[in-house]
């Protein structure tokens, strides 16, 4: 019964989405303005219905109702409760339902709380949200019904052991919230184009959604990277896997959009480019969702493999992206260029930063999709992995970092190169100091890590410069947000460079009592023992580790053998120190009583995720600051803007 109720709610939600779109179209296109107020309750009802459908799906997973095909295919009655619930979205159908649920909630939020926007733009925005939701409902109902029944199944097939991790409970919902937030930004852009309202007010209304989505994407990518790092057990933190790229592309577009929308909101510039970027960001979110879910990829992450849905997906992509581009082409003539600026100005720096981020995006997109296109057209299979991405995207990312150092120190509209260099003196000194330190103590390291460390030092100092000689009490919260996020970029880049330059790796076959050195640590194998887990059998190596002369401590890497489905996974033992992580993995038994051990000492690797967290935190500070300034009583806002003698800093 629960499954049927969920399906009914899903159908009704789809009808509401259709109604939402139709009401908007009639109100704006046919001049039936009287219909406009109805769109708000419809959006709310749609959200309530799709939430009901989603909770019904969770309920059948919790009850392990094996008469539902999705549960039988992906769950198991012996699975821990957390993974029963998280398993709801650990598969194709469930994750699409989660997507559309977040979309519905976002639509209701716009309907209930958006008060800044002109009425007709708001109606058009909600209609666009309805149209997007409609496509996803159609996809769910016609080709991916999560509530389909099956007969005569007693026990489920189980969930991929790699996914049986608390990460699954949070990772996909976080990324999806980011993707869907981009859909809201896209709907705003469509609404503004349709009602010819591309300007600072629209930018200010759209900005919290972009910021919010960007925060979710940042958190999702950072957490996903750490998740892959500790579950996959091969010591890497980014694999340039197509599925990782699928989440990186929307982030790159969103990062560019975040900066261009700031120009639009504060200087009324970059109008057309901001609209274009919001189309791009949402397109990348859709591509991201569907790359993962269509099964066209061969990747460690592709758990939902079903190529037959590909056609439906391509049609949806074509309709939305094609439709948006057509609308863009039709209306762009009416969008004037916006305010002008000099070649040395903050606008110009932001434009260049946008350009660089877009080129990185193109590199990632080409590297991810070109192998698929080549295979589809000529049958040739090639692999594009880390060597390509690092060597092509790496240098561009470094240039972006240099722009990032200079951008916030430039004045809006026009600035003098001489003054800019003066403001950067301390940053360059920090870069030179980093170079000297590396030359003195680190010896020869790769060129990319070397430049990365120098750039990180420059950016770290430059990111603090906007606070220099300022009254910190009167500095707006979003300036602190920007400082924090830029500092996070420096911290993260330093971590990446250190990991790539200074990691020590050893692999040996060890018998009990034998000792192996890695970095400054001595690792002694005491023995290997069996440990039963909740739904797997584990082998556990007992290792005694001591840092040069320090007290020994124990580390326990495990090898898990699952039966439903049969699969082996590594559980690395990771110990964090102030200056890095020791990462130990238990491998196969080699001859006799020897066991293969892989060991890494990874100096400062934790900075990668610390930086990611700082970037996300910076986003949150900015969001708070922006909401406080843009959405709290207007009286105060105009007062502050006029009282500010200095140009408003960028995000």
């Amino acid at each position, binding site marked *: 019964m629960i499954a049927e109720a969920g399906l009914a709610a899903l159908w009704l939600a789809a009808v509401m989405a259709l109604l939402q779109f139709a009401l908007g179209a009639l109100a704006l296109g046919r001049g039936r303005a009287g219909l406009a107020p109805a769109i708000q309750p419809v959006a709310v009802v749609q959200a309530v219905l799709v939430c009901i459908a989603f909770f019904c799906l969770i309920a059948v997973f919790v009850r392990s109702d094996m008469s539902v095909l999705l549960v039988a295919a992906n769950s198991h009655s012996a699975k821990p409760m957390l993974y029963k619930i998280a398993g709801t979205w650990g598969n194709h159908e469930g994750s699409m339902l989660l997507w559309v649920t977040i979309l519905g909630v976002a639509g209701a939020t716009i309907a209930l709380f958006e008060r800044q926007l002109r009425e007709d733009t708001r109606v058009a925005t909600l209609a666009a949200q309805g149209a997007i939701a409609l496509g996803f409902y159609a996809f769910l109902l016609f080709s991916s019904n999560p509530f389909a029944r099956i007969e005569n199944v007693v026990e489920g097939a189980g969930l991929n052991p790699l996914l049986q991790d608390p990460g699954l409970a949070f990772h996909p919902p976080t990324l999806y919230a980011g993707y869907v937030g981009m859909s809201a930004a896209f709907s705003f852009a469509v609404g503004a184009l349709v009602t010819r309202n591309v300007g600072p007010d629209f930018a200010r209304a759209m900005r919290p959604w972009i910021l919010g989505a960007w925060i979710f994407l940042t958190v999702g990518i950072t957490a996903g990277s750490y998740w892959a790092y500790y579950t996959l057990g091969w010591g890497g933190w980014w694999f340039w896997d197509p599925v990782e790229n699928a989440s990186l592309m929307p982030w790159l577009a969103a990062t560019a959009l975040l900066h261009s929308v700031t120009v639009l909101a504060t200087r009324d510039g970059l109008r057309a480019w901001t609209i274009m970027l919001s189309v791009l960001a949402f397109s990348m979110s859709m591509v991201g969702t569907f790359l993962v879910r269509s099964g066209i990829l061969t990747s460690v992450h592709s758990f939902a493999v079903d190529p037959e849905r590909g056609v439906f997906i391509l049609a949806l992509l074509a309709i939305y992206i094609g439709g948006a581009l057509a609308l863009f082409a039709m209306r762009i003539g009416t969008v004037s260029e916006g305010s*002008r600026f000099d070649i040395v100005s903050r606008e110009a720096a932001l434009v260049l930063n946008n*350009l660089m981020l877009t080129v990185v995006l193109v590199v990632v997109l080409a590297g991810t999709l070109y192998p698929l296109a080549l295979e589809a057209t000529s049958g040739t299979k*090639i692999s594009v992995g*880390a060597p390509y991405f690092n060597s092509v995207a790496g240098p561009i990312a470094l240039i972006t970092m240099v722009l990032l150092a200079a951008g916030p120190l430039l004045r809006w509209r026009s600035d003098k190169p001489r003054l800019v260099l003066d403001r950067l003196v301390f940053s360059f000194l920090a870069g030179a100091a980093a170079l000297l330190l590396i030359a003195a103590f680190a010896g020869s390291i790769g060129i990319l890590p070397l430049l990365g460390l120098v750039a990180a030092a420059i950016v770290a100092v430059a990111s603090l410069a906007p606070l220099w000689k300022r009254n910190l009490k009167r500095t707006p919260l979003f300036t602190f947000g920007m400082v924090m996020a830029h500092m996070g970029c420096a911290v993260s880049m330093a971590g990446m460079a250190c990991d790539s330059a200074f990691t020590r790796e050893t692999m040996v076959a060890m018998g009990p009592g034998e000792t192996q050195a890695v970095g400054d640590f001595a690792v002694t194998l005491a023995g290997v023992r069996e440990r039963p887990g909740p739904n797997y059998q584990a082998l556990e190596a007992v290792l005694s580790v001591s840092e040069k002369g320090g007290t020994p401590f124990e580390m326990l890497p495990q090898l898990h053998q699952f039966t439903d489905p049969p699969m082996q996974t590594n559980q690395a033992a990771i110990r964090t120190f102030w200056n890095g992580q020791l990462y130990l993995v238990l491998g196969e038994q080699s001859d006799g009583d020897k066991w293969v051990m892989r060991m890494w000492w990874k100096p400062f690797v934790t900075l990668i995720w610390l930086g990611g967290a700082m970037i996300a935190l910076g986003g949150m500070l900015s969001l708070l600051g922006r909401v406080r300034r843009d959405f709290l009583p207007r009286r105060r806002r105009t007062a502050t803007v006029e009282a500010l003698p200095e140009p408003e800093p960028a995000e």
Partner: protein
Amino acid sequence: MRRLAALALLIAAPLPAQAQDYAEVALPDPAQEAQASRLMDTIRCVVCQGQPISGSNADLAGDMRRIVRERIAAGDTPDEVRAWLISKYGDWVSFKPQVKPATLPLWLIPLVALVLGIWLVSRRLRRHH
């Protein structure tokens, strides 16, 4: 010649009794092991798809690791070993795409995007003066 010799050694000679099985064990020479390890990070395990052979639990990946280490130990350069693996398993085995007509778009597309972008930006900026 060296390659041929190594190949002959691989196929013909039964491993001496005391020889190491290098599938899971590092080479004694740290410099060679570093070369082998860097190479193995960029060679795809052909049965488990997404993973490089350095991180895969599959038996075939173990065999490939053994081959890589033995060839590096026999004096082959990483590029020679990569070329040999490609000749045996196809382009798909290398995460580093080979530069050839079919793969040129990988470098051309970003280049075109960059040039186009710079042209658009510079055109716009000049108009402001």
